[in-house]
């Protein structure tokens, strides 16, 4: 039983990580209908920036909390600038191009960012500085650490925050208008370039937070970490219904749970024929089944509300 509870916790933590990244994906998609394949790399840059700043500050004897705060702020600022530039250079000129064109530039941006990071931070894995004691808590025999609780709560808070931004603010209204119909929004006096830039910057700031949390949880940062993470988050966003913020959260948590329960129990379920090496098969199988019955994801139906 405690093993099962532990697997649920594992799944929720892993799922929150996916959700954090998926929120950024889905927000850009909601506004532009564009899969920002470079999002995973922005997460990676965020993690790297935070790691560098934090290591430097702790080295100079700055206490952990202010150091962390500064690291988050700097990583966010760096990623926002990066997100803005990516949109400006690789996506904006292609806004009227065939729909797959931005996909290719996104892949190009990914490759460029990966190799830039490799030049800057080197090829080796970096240990992420340990912050505080990271005390484990025992709940019913299962173990969860501080940082894992923070990740879970943070994902929920960010989702709620984004919902407020999208539905309660002027910017949010402009975003929804752009999502609905760019041309009409422009006629109504919405500066669509500004709105799209802000969307990218917001998404990239989220990526920085996600990168920091991922790195802090697993204790490492590496220039290649963005690829798989981005892929999983993309899967999660589609599972929940891409373009829908609640869907990204739901999809992320579900994917995390599916993976951990799959890895934990698939061997017992199939009498030892399939083991934990079929974890991803199991996850994709669930995804395909869901999409066969709900072709636009779990919460993807309400097109009007996407964003």
């Amino acid at each position: 039983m405690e093993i099962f509870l532990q697997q649920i916790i594992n799944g929720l933590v892993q799922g929150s990580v996916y959700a954090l990244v998926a929120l950024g994906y889905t927000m850009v998609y909601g506004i532009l209908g564009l899969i920002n394949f470079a999002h995973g790399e922005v997460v990676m840059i965020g993690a790297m920036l935070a790691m560098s700043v934090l290591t430097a500050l702790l080295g100079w004897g700055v206490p952990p909390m202010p150091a962390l705060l500064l690291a988050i702020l700097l990583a966010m600022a760096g990623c926002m600038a990066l997100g803005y530039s990516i949109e400006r250079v690789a996506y904006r000129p292609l806004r009227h191009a065939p729909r797959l064109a931005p996909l290719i530039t996104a892949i190009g941006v990914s490759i460029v960012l990966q190799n830039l990071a490799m030049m800057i931070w080197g090829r080796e894995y970096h240990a992420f500085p340990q912050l505080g004691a990271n005390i484990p808590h025992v709940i019913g025999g299962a173990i969860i650490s501080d940082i894992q609780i923070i990740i879970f709560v943070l994902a929920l808070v960010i989702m709620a925050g984004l919902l407020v931004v999208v539905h309660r603010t002027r910017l949010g209204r402009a975003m929804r208008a752009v999502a609905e119909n760019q041309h009409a929004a422009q006629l109504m006096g919405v500066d669509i370039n500004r709105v799209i830039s802000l969307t990218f910057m917001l998404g990239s700031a989220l990526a920085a937070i996600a990168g920091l949390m991922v790195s802090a949880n697993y204790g490492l940062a590496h220039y290649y970490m963005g690829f798989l993470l981005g892929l999983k988050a993309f899967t999660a966003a589609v599972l929940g219904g891409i373009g829908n913020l609640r869907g990204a959260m739901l999809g992320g948590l579900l994917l995390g749970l599916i993976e951990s329960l799959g890895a934990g129990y698939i061997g017992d379920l199939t009498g030892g024929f399939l083991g934990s090496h079929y974890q991803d098969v199991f996850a994709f199988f669930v995804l395909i089944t869901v999409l066969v019955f709900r072709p636009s994801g779990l919460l993807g139906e309400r097109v009007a509300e996407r964003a």
Partner: protein
Amino acid sequence: MPNAHKKPARKLQSPSPASGRGGRGEGGLYRSPIFWLLLGATLLLPFVTDALLGRGWVRIADFAMLYIMLALGLNIVVGYAGLLDLGYIAFFAVGAYCYALCGSPHLALAFPQAFPDGVHLPFWAILPLAALLAGGCGVLLGAPTLRLRGDYLAIVTLGFGEIIRIFMNNLNAPVNLTNGPQGISRIDPISVAGTSLNATHELFGITLPSVHLYFYLFLAFTLLVVFVSQRLEKSRIGRGWMAIREDEIAASAMGINTRNLKLLAFAMGAMFGGVSGTLFAGFQGFVSPESFSLMESIMVLCMVVLGGMGNIAGVIIGGLVLALLPEVLRHSVVPLQQALFGKTIIDPESLRMLLFGAALIVMMLYRPAGMLPSRVRRRELGNEETTGEASVYDAAH
């Protein structure tokens, strides 16, 4: 050299948007002197490159042709039928593993009684088998995804590609079918008319090394794939695919059986992938799951989009450029840096990939519809949700 036509060059070079789809019986490509010139040049290519650049480039050209075949296969799915497929490399893998299993000592490990020396079927027997198997996998992928569109289809195909790879990576137990991550080695070389392509042969006093022989074999298959693609494009089926791509609902209203046609697109594309995979396995003599990663699917998609979706010449150029670019960069970053700065400043490897990424961006920015866009310019993947926006895009044009 066939007779010169009035305005033949345009067919291959830059299709004019006004000329429409081109008549069925025209066959302009084969009457164009450019085509025959190119073909003649291609026939001499291995000898010229071997003499000027070294044999490595012949091998690179061999791989480039495998990629062109893959890109042409994917072009059927993405370019003609408008179905975004991110797991296309799976069919390449199916073809490769089919050849590896049917043409190596490997199966002796799993079934020592039935096949004490493994299975060693001839190439011409495995090829149709691999094509059929890959085509079957295409239908298998197509069937559950008929209702999906755009990005949802993309993620399911991506998942499918990963599932195939994971199975190949893990089916070494309980029965050792694929040898898992170790891959299958000692695969029989391809033999044509009793001649193994793995050895150097003499023909009319000309020495033909193995890579040259494979070059001609691959060239023959590439031409076949081009021919089939072209006939398909101009056929009833091809027009049906394009109708589906433009507007699926309208297509089915016009009496097109969208279900069958979509399945056929997946199957045809998969078959080309399977054929290419078979050739790959015979050429390499070794297959392992690493060769069929997601990044490969993405690269093939890049070739199709970068070249110009739906246009055969464009896709060929896209395949060529993306297969050759990393190698050209590999050979030129160090000399280039030395010419510019007198020494190697930046690590050549990271610079090479950096430039490759940058090239993808720049090429797309300058030619958003691909280097040779298809004649009828259209938005691909008629996604319901975005058709509204897309029309706005057109208005803004």
